[in-house]
């Protein structure tokens, strides 16, 4: 770890306190050698309107995805992206974004596919930083290109594919979409009809925990105690469970993946990035309607 962690009291209760930084910490650490700040937004122009001084932009759609195949970039492209973003393998990377850090969480997840050790999220993201009146700039960040090794993407540890999801039916799964998407009233999230599927409902056995239950009004994560009450208490998950989380394209479930893995310390959590846009259109895939998880007999 290049830059010392944020010793914020709230974070110290989490299983991995080193994965979060507060807005106070980040402002105090602007310009610290070894720290690279990355903005990753839903809106592709927002960074250009204003960003945290020194931050670079990495866009999930245009930088982290392949242009043709539905998949993430490979090791050489990731090395190139890191290099032009001024990131070294040992850099401390702090990611923040709009929309409650969905895309920041998603970018962090992709960094983890490439095994980048020290990646952290800004608790509260862009919204909290702006709301607190902290410094922003329009100035272009001048980056000195770095050397970043070519790392083979790890699609095993944190990522689940459709066949694995099929085999996982009967084991813990978390559907983080809205209740209407879960029970089958709609094939897409409110306001996102373009990311639709041919069928509505949920994967048999998946429990419904909308992602936002993990967040406070100010977009920060809830305390460990509050999170445990939801995922362990109410939903009965255990930290040694093997859990798969999904949503529609994997961005909201990255947020929940982050919560389960780093804040609550689950040993095995995977994000099914194919999510509902794949499962809900997959020929023959079993689906359950209604508010109950349901069962599927193979």
């Amino acid at each position, binding site marked *: 770890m290049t830059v010392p962690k944020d010793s914020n009291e709230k974070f110290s209760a989490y299983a991995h306190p080193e994965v979060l930084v507060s807005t106070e910490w980040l402002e105090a650490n602007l310009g610290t050698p070894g720290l690279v700040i990355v903005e990753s937004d*839903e*809106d*592709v*122009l927002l960074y250009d*309107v204003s960003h945290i001084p020194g931050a670079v932009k990495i866009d999930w759609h245009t930088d982290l995805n392949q242009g043709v195949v539905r998949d993430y970039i490979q090791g050489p492209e990731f090395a190139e992206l890191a290099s032009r973003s001024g990131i070294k393998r040992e850099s401390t990377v702090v990611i923040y974004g709009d929309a409650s850090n969905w895309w920041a969480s998603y970018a962090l997840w992709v960094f983890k596919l490439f095994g980048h050790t020290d990646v952290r999220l800004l608790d509260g993201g862009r919204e909290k930083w702006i709301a607190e009146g902290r410094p922003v700039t329009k100035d272009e960040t001048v980056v000195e290109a770095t050397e970043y090794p070519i790392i083979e993407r790890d699609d095993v540890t944190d990522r689940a594919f459709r066949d694995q999801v099929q085999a996982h039916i009967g084991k813990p799964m978390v559907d983080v979409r809205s209740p209407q998407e879960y029970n089958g009233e709609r094939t897409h999230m409110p306001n996102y009809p373009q990311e639709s599927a041919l069928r509505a409902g949920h994967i048999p056995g998946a429990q419904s925990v909308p992602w936002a239950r993990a967040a406070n009004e100010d977009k920060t994560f809830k305390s460990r105690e509050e999170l445990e009450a939801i995922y362990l208490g109410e939903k009965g998950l255990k930290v040694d469970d093997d859990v798969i989380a999904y949503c529609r394209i994997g961005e909201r479930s990255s947020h929940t993946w982050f919560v389960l893995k780093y804040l609550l310390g689950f040993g095995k959590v995977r994000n099914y990035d194919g999510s509902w846009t794949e499962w809900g259109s997959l020929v023959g895939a079993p689906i359950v309607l209604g508010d109950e998880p349901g069962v599927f007999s193979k």
Partner: protein
Amino acid sequence: MTSIEQSLNDLGSEFAELGVKDRLTLLLEIAGELPELPARYADHPDLLERVEECQSPVFLFVEVENDRVGIFLTAPEEAPTTRGFASILHQLLNGHTVAEVLAAPEDIPDRLHLKDAVSLLRINGLRGMLNRIKRQVAEKA
């Protein structure tokens, strides 16, 4: 008045000639040109229709007077891409006749050369706005 087809060709060529980064800069400039809502709508958000296809809250209202179409769109400051799309449609369609707006090309979103810069998923918001403008024009003509 320049035809919608001609304006679209001009704007499409302007984007096409730029690199990806400059396309975003141009879109941001266009976003800045979106006119403020007149008081009669700014004070009455209930009159405006929400564009559900857009990820951020976009609202629109269409007026038809003497066969001319007036288009009013608003989107939050923190959604500059959506403001850019709204502003493009405003620039292309505002002030044209009912027949011209109804006949406006359905593939406006595809002819702007923004796919690489903005991504396919995001451009779909523009499609939603266009469809709703046309529907309101047809209803009010």
